[in-house]
């Protein structure tokens, strides 16, 4: 990775995605995580148990907000209603940071509820950079943009995803959320070298890392977040930490969610790997 200046804030440590099945664990006793990530949309509701629980857990843990519906790459005006709900949630939560994905989720008032890939070309880059600027102005802070998993490449693309992300981050002056599993999934689906991807990103803008599991279909891989992190992704994570330095890292699990203890032990593996990756070579 280019050894550029560090714009990302120092790592607050290791975290997990907060999921409702684990509410009782977090409410009952302190858990060994330095922060928690919420899916913003799950708390863009008026009240009741989600908001009450969030307030209680927020009193004990720093929180980062991770959105799935910003649709930063849609070629149409941003959804002001969504943005104002996002800002209201940020005002309530006072998150460490706010993230969403390099993707689009819908167009013309129709929504796929999926992180759809973009063509990587100059007009799309302009659209994304402009939209990130508008969002950052509105929220009054830099946002993090995450690399997505994808299953198609557009014929219109004329550059790699990492080149697109690198130029986007510089031009929009935003931060990056590096999903190591997504790099692995997309590398398998599109046939690129994950290390080319890692070394093409501006390391100083990477503020968070996601780790997750996927479903290997043989010919292709689907980003399902329903399994443990695989060995190839752990290896890639160690490479990423060695290149970038300490970065806030968490495990994403959205389906077939195990007891909290299982995720904490996976997170322990991340802590150990990161520690080993940061030790000076040759001691």
């Amino acid at each position, binding site marked *: 990775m280019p050894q550029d200046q560090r714009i990302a804030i120092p790592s607050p440590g290791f975290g997990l995605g907060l999921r409702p099945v684990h509410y009782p664990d977090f409410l009952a006793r302190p858990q060994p995580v330095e922060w928690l990530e919420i899916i913003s949309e799950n708390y*863009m509701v008026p009240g009741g148990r989600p908001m009450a629980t969030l307030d209680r857990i927020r009193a004990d843990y720093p929180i980062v907000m991770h959105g799935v519906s910003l649709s930063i790459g849609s070629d149409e005006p941003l959804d002001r209603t969504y943005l104002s709900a996002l800002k209201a949630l940020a005002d309530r939560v006072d998150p460490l940071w706010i993230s969403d994905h390099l993707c689009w989720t819908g167009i013309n008032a129709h929504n796929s509820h999926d992180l759809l890939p973009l063509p990587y070309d100059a007009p799309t880059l302009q659209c994304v950079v402009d939209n990130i600027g508008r969002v950052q102005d509105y929220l009054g802070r830099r946002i993090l943009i995450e690399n997505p998993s994808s299953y198609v490449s557009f014929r219109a693309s004329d550059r790699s995803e990492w080149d697109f992300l690198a130029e986007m981050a510089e031009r929009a002056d935003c931060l990056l959320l590096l999903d190591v599993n997504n790099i692995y999934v997309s590398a398998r689906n599109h046939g690129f070298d994950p290390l080319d991807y890692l070394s093409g990103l501006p390391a100083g803008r990477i503020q968070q890392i996601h780790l997750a599991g996927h479903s290997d279909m043989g010919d292709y891989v689907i980003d399902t977040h329903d399994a443990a992190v695989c060995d190839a992704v752990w290896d890639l994570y160690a490479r990423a930490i060695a290149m970038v330095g300490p970065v806030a890292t968490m495990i994403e699990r959205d389906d077939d969610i195990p007891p909290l203890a299982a995720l904490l032990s996976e997170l322990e593996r991340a802590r150990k790997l990161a520690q080993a990756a940061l030790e000076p070579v040759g001691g």
Partner: protein
Amino acid sequence: MADALYAIQQRFLAAIMGEDADAEALIVDDARVGAARRIGIYRNNYRASLTGVLADHFERLHAYLGDAQFGHIADAYVKAHPSTTRNLRYYGAALPGFIAHHFPEDGELAELARLDWALRHAFDALDASPLDAGAIGMLGEQWVGASLALHPSARLLTMHHNSAALWSALDAGEAPPAVAVLAAPVDVLVWRSGLQPHFRSLAAVEAATLVRIGRGASFADISAHLVNEVEEATAMETLAALLARWLADGVLILADQAAAVT
């Protein structure tokens, strides 16, 4: 010139949401997976996430119908109702009406769907401080004339079938009773008490009174109305019992609080 991004996105989304539309020409083809299968992954994700969220929102209807029949209805609904909501939480609002339209002979299905949806609404509806004995005491003489409202979580549903009993049996994991048409329609109150959604069937007098409260009636208004209908002592006794229950359940708020939060 290459397609504008907007045109690419419209075409790609149409291909995901409907099976007829084609977007393969936009995609790099390959011998290993192929453009058609690659788009198919997104098409499948879309259908699976929407039918999945319907199964989640309409949990008891799903249990009643079973996977196959519920899946069939959910697929048809997703085809007929492409998502136009940004937050998946709000997808499925039209399912009860869709079912009523397609299964007019099986009225209990739409009623179960309405009850599931109302309970989902109650779960995360707006917070508001319900009236309790202490709050009424603070109001003093203003209480009887104060305009009332139902808690933002509250909904009244009219049932023509024993759907409330079906729901409760399904919730308890028991075999539901046989479907029966009620001798007279019964209203059900759905609301949230603390953080927990609840529902209960209402006698006609309570339902009618709650409808009036929903329109902003005061305690004086509902008393006057009831006294017109039944003998005064009975009316006052009935109202005292109803009020005690509403206060215990957290069903009422002051109308000016409702105005402040909406």
